[in-house]
């Protein structure tokens, strides 16, 4: 019997654990280590952040699900990986620190035969002075953050109802953020809520983003066939901003957040400031900061992780200019090159380079979106990694048998622009592939028959259906494995 250890229980980790138990459970042992007791369906946090959904509607308790499935769940934070074992033997292991209230702070070692690192991101609020809920801005990255944002938003609305004017700034809190989509959704949900409450005229809304052009979303944007033209997502995004009366500030690196003022630098080297009464700014992501040690206890973190804390896998990490990037640079199997029994999934893997073109301000400050790898790609990577491990354990495969390159897969994404059964809207989008492949699709890097976008009520219904469907899947209810990632 072998032990598969999965670090993390987010979209990638929970998907990996669910399929691992289904495929390996009778013959092998599946262990999940996560510091959180809950699975959070993060795409719905934006509705929590405007007070239109209760936090308990976007989470599922992990322990009962894993107990029923026969997965060994440890509520703990991983501290270090020892891929060569320790002085007492060559069995690889990790060290963890319990976060379960009953055993908080206790440390233990967990041995493994195969390891999947699906730890997700560290929300790196510390990268920008004053950023984050412990500083001067809000966040919707966790359900707890979103709940706090909803309380602050309600206070802001009450001020407007008393006749006060409010400046609202929503966007990215650093020049190298990803996940612009979440901030973008929050912006339009805030705008719609202000209209619903009859105070829209009391607020000025600002979209602050590190994108070179609106609608980049860390993917270099996308081209769509619409109205007889092939049009970049910049046009549709600016259209929505203009329609909803939002001012936009692009190519911006947030340098500091004071109690009522955001400071930012733009690509032209100019420094700006935006006063605010309410602000939600997404933080940049970093790896969770795992350390690695060899058998003798010497640190080998750089063999497993890049300087940002993301795990090296089978990508082409050779530094090269934007013009020489290729789809084949992107990892396919997510296997660590030094330790073949270690894989990464979701945000935890190190991308070979961004998707959007890297830009630097005249002062040398990098200002460009880093690549997104949340949602559908995260889940697909988690499933592919576990399928490879299954084949290595059960069928004697010596190499990973399944691939999930972001340059060979598409993504379906629904970005809410306001909630409501009859008056909600959302942008339904698909891109194929996620990472443009200019060899295969020389004009725009993507298949224009599979890349589309449309705004409407149907998008809102789809987003809500996805909310219900993926929480059903997360609970491992009847037929869960039939629901695609």
């Amino acid at each position, binding site marked *: 019997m072998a032990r598969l250890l999965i670090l993390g229980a987010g979209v990638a980790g929970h998907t990996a654990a669910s399929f691992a138990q289904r495929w390996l459970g009778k013959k092998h042992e599946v262990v999940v280590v996560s510091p959180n007791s809950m699975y959070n369906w993060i795409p719905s946090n934006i509705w929590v952040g405007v007070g239109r959904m209760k936090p308990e509607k976007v989470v599922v308790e992990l322990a009962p699900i894993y107990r029923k499935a026969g997965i060994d769940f440890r509520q703990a934070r991983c501290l270090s990986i020892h891929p060569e074992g320790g002085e007492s033997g060559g069995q690889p292991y990790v060290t963890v620190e319990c976060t379960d209230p009953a055993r908080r702070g206790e440390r233990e070692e967990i041995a493994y035969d195969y390891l999947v690192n699906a730890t997700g991101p560290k929300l790196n609020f510390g990268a920008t002075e004053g950023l984050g809920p412990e500083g001067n801005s809000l966040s919707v990255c966790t359900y707890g953050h979103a709940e706090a944002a909803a309380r602050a938003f309600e206070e802001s609305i009450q001020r407007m109802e008393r006749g006060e004017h409010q400046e609202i700034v929503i966007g990215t809190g650093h020049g190298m953020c990803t996940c612009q989509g979440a901030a973008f959704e929050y912006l339009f949900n805030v705008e719609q809520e202000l209209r619903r409450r009859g105070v829209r005229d009391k607020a000025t809304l600002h979209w602050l983003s590190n994108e070179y052009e609106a609608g980049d979303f860390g993917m270099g944007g996308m081209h769509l066939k619409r109205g007889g033209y092939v049009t970049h997502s910049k046009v549709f995004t600016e259209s929505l901003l203009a329609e909803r009366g939002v001012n936009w500030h692009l190519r911006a690196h947030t340098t500091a957040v004071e109690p009522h003022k955001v400071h930012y630098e733009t690509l032209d080297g100019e420094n700006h400031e935006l006063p605010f009464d309410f602000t939600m700014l997404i933080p940049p992501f970093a790896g969770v900061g795992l350390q690695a040690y060899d058998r003798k206890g010497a640190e080998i973190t750089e063999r497993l992780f890049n300087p940002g804390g993301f795990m090296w896998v089978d990508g082409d990490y050779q530094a090269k200019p934007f013009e020489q990037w290729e789809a084949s640079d992107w990892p396919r199997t997510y296997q660590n090159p030094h330790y073949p029994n270690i894989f990464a999934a979701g945000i935890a893997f190190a991308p070979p380079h961004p998707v959007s073109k890297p830009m630097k301000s005249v002062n040398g400050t990098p200002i460009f979106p880093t690549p997104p790898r949340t949602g559908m790609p995260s889940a697909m990577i988690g499933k592919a990694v576990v399928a490879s491990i299954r084949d290595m354990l059960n069928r004697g495969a010596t190499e990973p048998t399944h691939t999930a390159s972001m340059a060979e897969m*598409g993504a379906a994404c629904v970005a809410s622009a306001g909630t409501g059964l009859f008056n909600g*809207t959302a942008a339904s989008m698909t891109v194929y592939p996620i990472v443009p492949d200019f060899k295969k699709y020389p004009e725009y890097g993507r298949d224009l028959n599979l890349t589309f976008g449309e*705004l409407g009520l*149907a998008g809102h*219904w789809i987003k809500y259906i996805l909310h219900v469907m993926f929480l059903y899947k997360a609970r491992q209810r009847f037929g869960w494995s039939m629901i695609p990632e």
Partner: protein
Amino acid sequence: MTNPKPYEQGYFPPVPTSATRFWRTNLLWQVWRLLRINMKMVRVIRASHR
């Protein structure tokens, strides 16, 4: 919220006409779009799972 003035930022992008806005929330049309969008998403999901 007022209309953007000439040469303001919001003056330049295309904005939807009242007809476009109407169809965005018209129930019958949106039920049809729900089916069409789902079909497109299924095509992308199938292409990704090859």
